[in-house]
């Protein structure tokens, strides 16, 4: 990659996530307004929770009149997958101060995780870049939410602009950019297939976590076994 300035590097890295967060945040804002949340309430959730899928789920539950304790518990279950992401990034944050980890992790989402796991593996682990990237991503989320609330009732359909496809498209890019060897392909196939299978079996809250644990275990087994028997690798 060509040389870039400090702020240029931050912005270009954050840009794809920003592009995804604006429309999704917008969709959240519209749904929140339609669910009867005030501007303050809608924005407070985006500031303090900052979790795309759980915010959308929470708004849906609020509009159905579901009790707040159930909403908090659902949020917990939906966000438990971040345990795995936080753990996965930890080996790269050896040099970080605790306060930097605390700030960084507040904005650790599926999308920022995918961006940083890619960067960290290339050795780009400076908190001076990583934290501003996260801040820009949350600002995009806030702007999207705000525009969504303001548009509120005027918008009933986001489909003509394909805003709903921003997130799947981002996952496609993030996944494919991670894959560098055959073992990762197997892990990805198992993770995706298990996640779908569990979902079809009715395990719709835990499917992502269970599939991730199982598929990562396959990867670890493949990796440690290949290390112990390097000759096999040469033959294939």
């Amino acid at each position, binding site marked *: 990659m060509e040389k870039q300035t400090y702020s240029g590097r931050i912005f270009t890295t954050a840009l*794809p996530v920003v592009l995804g967060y604006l429309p999704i945040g917008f969709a959240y804002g519209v749904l929140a307004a339609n669910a009867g949340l005030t501007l303050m309430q809608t924005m407070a959730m985006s500031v303090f929770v900052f979790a795309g899928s759980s915010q959308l789920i929470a708004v849906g539950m609020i509009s159905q009149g579901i009790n*707040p*304790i159930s909403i908090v518990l659902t949020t917990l279950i939906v966000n438990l997958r971040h345990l795995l992401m936080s753990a996965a990034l930890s080996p790269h944050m*050896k040099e970080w101060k605790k306060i930097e980890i605390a700030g960084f992790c*507040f904005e650790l989402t599926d999308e920022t995780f995918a961006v940083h796991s890619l960067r960290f593996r290339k050795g780009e682990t400076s908190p001076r870049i990583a934290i501003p990237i996260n801040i820009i991503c949350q600002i995009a989320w806030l702007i999207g939410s705000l525009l969504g609330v303001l548009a509120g009732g005027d918008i009933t359909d986001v489909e003509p602009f394909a805003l709903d496809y921003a997130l799947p*498209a981002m996952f496609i*890019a993030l996944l494919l950019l991670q894959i560098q060897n055959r073992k*990762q392909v197997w892990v990805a196939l198992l993770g995706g297939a298990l996640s779908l299978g569990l979902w079809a079996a009715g395990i719709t809250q835990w499917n992502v976590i269970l599939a991730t644990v199982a598929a990562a275990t396959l990867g670890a087994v493949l990796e440690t076994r290949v290390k112990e028997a390097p000759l096999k690798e040469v033959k294939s």
Partner: protein
Amino acid sequence: MSDLIFYLMIGGMMLVTYLPRLLPAWLLQGRTIHPFLAAWLKYVPVAVLSALLLPSLLVMDGRFNLVWNNLYLWAALPAALVALKTHSMFATVLVGMAVVALARLLLA
């Protein structure tokens, strides 16, 4: 829901979102990790992204959609091609969205 209850709920949501994000990184930092766990953590990104992606393409309105008219699935092909060719997240997202928008325009 009263304002007080709402903000208490936000506080609860914040806690159960932040703690899972924070605690593993906070507690594991600087520790020597067993080689198997280290290898395991290396495969978490690929595993979790795939586990998130496939349902997002194949589940519509709470149901499986594996048939030929699943636009999300078709649009994934050009998007994936762009991702592999350009290694650009930005281009992938743009092309994916453009294909879906165009298809909806033409099929409407």
